[in-house]
């Protein structure tokens, strides 16, 4: 816990601490995780803000994301260039938002962007179909997928334009008490 590290200036660490939901130790730990993905690309000195981006292949091979069916979308949403290549800021942001301490509306916004596969700020039917297939591992038949998508749009679309906007999504999330909590809502 001493000030022996030379990776960040004290000011930088404080800023990171204020802007993510992590403590100093956790931020340093995450930095080492980031560096372990590509030790030759990531310098040990971030005091002069180097511009380093790790490609998506390395990010997607992390043990936390490896088994997640949405890993590509997650990487795309949190990366600056939208292709999945992440800087350290993007990396920290991703873990901060997905952690338990982040507030619900922040998670809701990012969840909306993750489910929006074609990036048009609306969740349309094709987005829903892709989401459903990823959620159930392609085990539903085409008919069933179509039926569920119709039902979802029926239930959640409040302004009746055939697709879900951010307001519709947030309105529905507000009603779910277990959103992004470690609880089984089927009990």
């Amino acid at each position, binding site marked *: 816990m001493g000030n022996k590290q030379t990776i960040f200036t004290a000011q930088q660490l404080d*800023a990171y601490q*204020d*802007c*993510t939901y992590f403590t100093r130790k956790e931020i340093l730990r995450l930095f080492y995780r980031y560096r372990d993905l590509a030790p030759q690309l990531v310098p040990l000195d971030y005091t002069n803000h180097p511009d380093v981006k790790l490609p998506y292949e390395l990010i997607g091979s992390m*043990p*936390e*994301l*490896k*088994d*997640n069916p*949405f890993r590509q979308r*997650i990487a795309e949403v*949190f990366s*600056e260039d939208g292709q999945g290549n992440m800087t350290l*800021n*993007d990396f*920290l*942001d991703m873990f*901060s*938002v*997905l952690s*338990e*301490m982040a507030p619900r509306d*922040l*998670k809701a*916004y990012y*969840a909306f962007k993750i*489910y929006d596969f074609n990036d048009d700020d609306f969740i349309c039917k094709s987005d*829903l179909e892709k*989401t459903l297939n990823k*959620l*159930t*591992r392609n*085990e*539903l038949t085409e008919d*069933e997928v179509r*039926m*569920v998508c119709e*039902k*979802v749009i029926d*239930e*959640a679309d*409040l*302004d*009746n*334009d055939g697709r879900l906007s951010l307001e519709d*999504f947030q309105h*529905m*999330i507000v*009603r*779910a008490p*277990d*959103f*992004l909590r*470690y*609880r*089984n*809502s*089927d*009990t």
Partner: protein
Amino acid sequence: DSNQVCLCRETTKTCWIAALEDQDCPPLNYINVCLIVLQVQQMQVPASSNAASWKHNKTKSLRKLKNNFWEFLYYFTLWGRSLQKIGGNFGGGVQSYFLFLRFLVVLNFVSFLLIAGFVIIPSFVLGSAESGFVNRPCMTYDPNPNTLVAFYEYFLHLLSGTGFMEDSFMFYGYYNNNTGTEDGSRAYNIPLAYIFTAIFYFAFCLCCIIARSVAVATGGSTVGNYSMIVFTGWDFGCLGNQATKLKQKNIYYRLQVDLEEERIKKQAASLTPWRKVALYSLRILMFVVALGLIGAAFFGIFKATDFSQVRDGQPGFLGLLIEFLPSIVITTGNFLVPLLCDQIALIEKYSPSITVVMALLRAVVLRLVSLGILLFTLCSQITCSGNAEASACQQCRYDHEKYPCWETRVGQEMYKLMLFDLLVNIALLVCLCFLVCVRIVVDNWSCKLSQLVGRQEFVVPSNVLGLVYGQTVVWAGALFCPLLPLMNTIKFVILFYCKKITLFHNCRPALKTFRSTTSTFFFLVVLLFGWTLALVVMIYSLAVINPSMACGPFRFFPSMWKIVPNSFYCLSKVTQDFLFFIGSQAFSIPLFALSCVIMCYFVALASIYGKSVEMLKAQLKLEGQDKQFLVKQIERLKLQHLMPALRAEVQD
């Protein structure tokens, strides 16, 4: 310093949301916005209002504490992870059985604490019965005549509740009728405590069941079911490979439940009127057939009991057969009738949830009637079939030769039933283990028996009925055997692990799952049937049959209930008048009317809220349409304004 953090985060959020809504601004990550805001803030002089940010800080830390507390509690929920695993692998229907089992375990444990606190511990503290051998008629009772017994006899005593077990806190006969009034310092009336604890135990169980059924009925909301599952079913936690697959299967099963019901609804809607009439008349016919089957089973059991009692006392194997004839008929009925009802259910073509409920309701009465007949037989033997003038019952008004302490005997019968149930389940598990081992050892053995293993489906209704039967036995026996709830807790815990092992090694997931909220509600309704049976037993024992004179806390009372009026007159005059007033009509009728009025008020309130929700939803739709209309108008007007300018330019 933390004030600054809060302010920073609030400002960041506003900036970030503003940046999102601004079309020209490229999408920025939250962290980048935050860093910029922080830089800006550090350039200004921090003019934070301490009071507001302090309060903000406090509410945030309080919320965090509450969240942590719930996480901590969830981690310690009984069998939380096992239930999740079961739900993921086998669906919500099978999981609802295990949730029901967990509810019963908790109920039994809490009732044991109640009974221990009010009856067992005071009895222990205030001293046990005077074990004098009184040589008077009706009072000769020696529970443990040979204290020096061979080792195997200990085992027999353990299994049947006799011997050293009979002479212990387990059974009614051990408690004495000391009211502690000899010296004024201890005034704890054990018989009164005993009877009030029994009554309160029944009331407590009823309240728990009703509370749970209300929680279950209002817990699941059918509004927004699909969208809930799709968008909130996935938590973006870091799960491993296995846990991810489990979560995906769980979501798949939950969707399947709704999809199955949709499919059946669609099928039903697509029928022509003639086919609809045919289907409904077929259903009514099958209902009548099922009723007839159950009636025939009852008739058979009644006839067998009658026959067995008339021809009692025949020697040899034939006599044994006749003695066990009612049990044989009951077991055959319990086996055959559900099988036939399953075939009937195939013809009826209800949705899976309703099929499960029908199977449950049809089989429950049959299961409970066996217990009822056993208790009825015992009762008629104890009271000489109600004939107070029969030679055996003349002296003490119950058969004191065969049953010197009949309450203990009834308690022993209930204890034996409970133990037998547990042993059967353990034996089944051992058989299954043996078969699995055999299948592993002899891998290519294409014997039919080894093919049975691993292909079974976990049949929820019959397992639930087993639980209801076990719990009814405990309720019926709790008055006579106060430690029975504790043993039942242990039995159900062992049963949980037995069933879980059976499930994972022998069963495959069902092809069609059913909705667990409907079925859980009906599990509780069926449990209430069992409770009613046990209540009848308790009321009969308290009010009608004479307690034994040789043992127990109610030794010299004509009936167990008599102690309450007797003690009532020992209370002060004011209390007596107050209690008389509460029981009189002048109080109860206005109370009843008031509760009706309150109930009507709540029903009206609920319906008004529902209507206003519908109205607001419709309004929201209209607003959306208005917005689209206005946007179109604006576009049109823009074009209209642009057209003349464009034409002017073109002309130029």
